């Protein structure tokens, strides 16, 4: 199923002869999308309990699974740094966890290259669960007695993942629209 795009946007990529994707869009869009997800604390949602999924992290995992290698292996450092500025976690937690996650996703890509979406989803669910638990442990050292508090957030994140993957696919199509005349 293809998500319908507005007509003017569809018209942009129609002329394919003598056209190529803009390198600026092709490179910048994945970074900007993940950073936009990291900005979720300034979205108009105010919660007194942690319920919102870590949108930036979900987008990062979805990009890595849709287009392995689109981010360099060290992408966890700059993207995690940006996330740390807004997330409210202790500074450095996203740098550490996102770096480890990108290395792990890269390892899985080389070790198990043939995967369907169900397997991707299962693996993403495991990565997200580990991320949420470790993030909680880093944010509140000594408070491990209450891992139940993040279960609603975990369930929501796992259920939201296919939607995020679909969104990333949409942005991927947008990124590769042939707009540049050659």
């Amino acid at each position: 199923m293809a998500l319908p795009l507005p007509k003017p946007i569809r018209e942009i990529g129609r002329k394919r002869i003598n056209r190529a994707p803009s390198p600026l869009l092709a490179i910048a869009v994945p970074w900007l999308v993940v950073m936009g997800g990291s900005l979720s604390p300034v979205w108009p949602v105010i919660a007194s309990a942690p319920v919102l999924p870590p949108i930036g992290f979900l987008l990062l995992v979805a990009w890595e699974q849709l287009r392995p290698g689109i981010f360099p292996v060290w992408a966890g450092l700059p993207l995690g740094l940006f996330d740390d500025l807004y997330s409210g976690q202790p500074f450095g937690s996203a740098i550490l966890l996102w770096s480890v996650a990108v290395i792990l996703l890269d390892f899985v890509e080389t070790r198990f290259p043939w995967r369907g979406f169900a397997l991707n989803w299962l693996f993403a669910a495991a990565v997200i669960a580990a991320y949420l638990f470790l993030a909680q442990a880093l944010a509140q050292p000594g408070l491990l007695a209450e891992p139940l508090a993040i279960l609603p957030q975990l369930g929501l994140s796992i259920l939201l993942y296919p939607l995020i993957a679909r969104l990333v696919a949409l942005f991927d199509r947008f990124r590769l629209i042939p707009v540049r005349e050659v």
Partner: protein
Amino acid sequence: MAPTGSRRPGHSRRAQYGTFLNYLLAVAGAAAGGALLIAASSDATVFSGIRGTATDLAAPAGEAGAGARTESQGLLRALGAFFTKGSRVAKLEREVAEARVRLVEAQALHEENRELRALLKLAQSEPKPVASARLIGSTASSTRRFALLGVGSSQGVAPGMPVISPLGLIGRVLEVGRSSARVLLITDSQSIIPVRRASDGIVALAVGNPDGTVHLKLQSLGLNPLKAGDAFVTSGSGGLFRPGIPFAVVAKPTRDGAIARPLSNPASTDFVIVEPQWDEAGGDPTLPAPAGAQ
């Protein structure tokens, strides 16, 4: 193209070194994250400057969304209220009638209180608010509970100032940027607030829970006197918050205190008020000076 399962890009030495360098950078990045984490845990204020600048930059976007948030919350509540209208109107009318009588009594008490205070030559102690602003966002995906506020040091906001909504205490300012501030909500696990029961002054410490409630820990041991529905207000000890700010209502008594639901809901609050620290406002003149003040 079928993936090869190998990270080796080919025979080019240059490309091989490039790949190796990428992995080296990735591991160094993870190590840097760990080092920053240790630095942050030893002194939480190290990164407040860079965070303040970052929230300053993002604050305009948050301001734009804040109005829409409160409006949508109001709309949802109006839709929900439509279905239970009849029975609730009757109940509310009865409550309003009772509340009117209470209001008259309260006015009389207020007047009497003013006269008594004048007799004792105590100053009226409602501190003047520093600023009023919108909450523009919150760290909804982290287990730490912070909110972002649309005013900062240029409006006179400083760390430690209490943030109050019309319904009760929201939290206190933790870090300030030039035009934005980070508020530690009362439901954060690092927030400890001295409170007392409104009816008889039993003191307790309120610690935030990760699920959006607060845990009231009684100061005195013995039989737990708390019941569901008891209202708590701030007690004013500790010097940050003035006494008598509405705080929370007990939901479920536990062995050492109670689980309570905060009265203020940051999500549906339009404007909040930043008040000066209680200490700076002169302290409570009925108490002796704190130890070491002379």
